[in-house]
């Protein structure tokens, strides 16, 4: 075997080992790498009960209630479970019923998630409004599912 073939094999083995190490690390970290918890995880009490975390999902259609001043109440769902959210502040432009959101806050005693920050999550679909209208007329859902 020539020296350069040895070096190539050495490098490739190194890369494989490195990939394996990275895979093990991320496996161990598991869902801790995720940016938010889903409503199902909150209902199953997998989300932290006593400190800040983020909740992600879709705003339930028809659930947005604008109260006095800036407090807004809405419900977030991942289609399996629903969590009620309360937020005082300015919502991002893309915030809409049926649209993805990520809220940061704490779970209150009554099960209502009190958010201190709300971010809009949009999907990867881009199209002109006419196409979106046509799709909606055809009965297809255009606004995104949140993973």
């Amino acid at each position, binding site marked *: 075997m020539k020296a350069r073939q040895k070096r*190539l094999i050495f490098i490739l083995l190194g890369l494989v080992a490195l990939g394996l190490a990275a895979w093990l690390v991320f496996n161990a970290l598991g869902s801790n790498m995720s*940016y938010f918890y889903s409503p199902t995880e909150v209902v199953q009490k997998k989300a932290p009960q006593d400190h800040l975390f983020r909740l992600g999902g879709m705003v339930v259609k028809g659930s947005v209630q604008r109260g006095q001043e800036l407090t807004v109440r809405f419900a977030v769902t991942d289609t399996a479970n629903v969590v009620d959210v309360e937020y005082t502040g300015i919502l*991002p432009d893309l915030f809409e019923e049926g649209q993805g959101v990520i809220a940061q806050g704490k779970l209150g005693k009554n099960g209502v998630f009190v958010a201190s920050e709300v971010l809009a*999550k949009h*999907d990867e679909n*881009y199209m*002109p409004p006419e196409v979106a209208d046509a799709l909606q007329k055809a009965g297809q859902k255009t606004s995104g599912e949140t993973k």
Partner: protein
Amino acid sequence: MSSNRFNWFRFSSPATFYPLAGRLVPWFSAIAIILIVIGLYMSFFVAPTDYKQGEGYRIIFVHVPASWMSMFIYLVMAFWAIIGLVFNTRVSGMMVQSLAPTGALFTFLALWTGAFWGKPMWGTWWVWDARLTSELILFFLYIGYIALHSSIDDKRRADRASAILVLVGVVNIPIIYYSVKWWNTLHQGASVSVKSGSSMASIMLITMLIMALGFWFYSIAVALARVRSIILERERDANWVSELPEIKR
């Protein structure tokens, strides 16, 4: 290697690669300028408004090609790093060195345009989700490579040491690419992928691909122009350099 086959190793010598790069640079520059001008025109005037994000989504035409380039240039650097370590060719190390600033530029551009896009759409400049954080780490890898390479005076040793850094960092590329699949992130999934095609209107997709192609040609042109300077700098004591018409005078 048999002699009747085209011998690629001919160009692993700086003396033969220098004039080749010089002949290629104007062509790649010209194509890059044409593609980017067409791409920008289409970005602003031809591509339609988005149904949800309105005009603000147009930043995608810079953001996505820049992000692609930031990852792709790193892979090309890793390729040259392996070639350099295995075959001990001098030009390989110089190619890695010449690509790094362009890669860092595109990574910065991806992060910067992403922040500008995130503020109006998500409501925040920056979040520490898996996609954004891994892209930031890529930026640090580029900066780390440049810093390590320039801190070692013997450039051949610098090539080898920093090639290892480049190869260690290459695990980050699949992490960036798949981060939106593997974990819950604020960043949305890929609009364009080999497996599932595209979820964009076709005119938007074409515009984005023209911009991406333009960035490709720009990167090649700039990397070749830069590698010429690196060759001159590192080979300044070589005979062939002193006999170049532009040096001799």
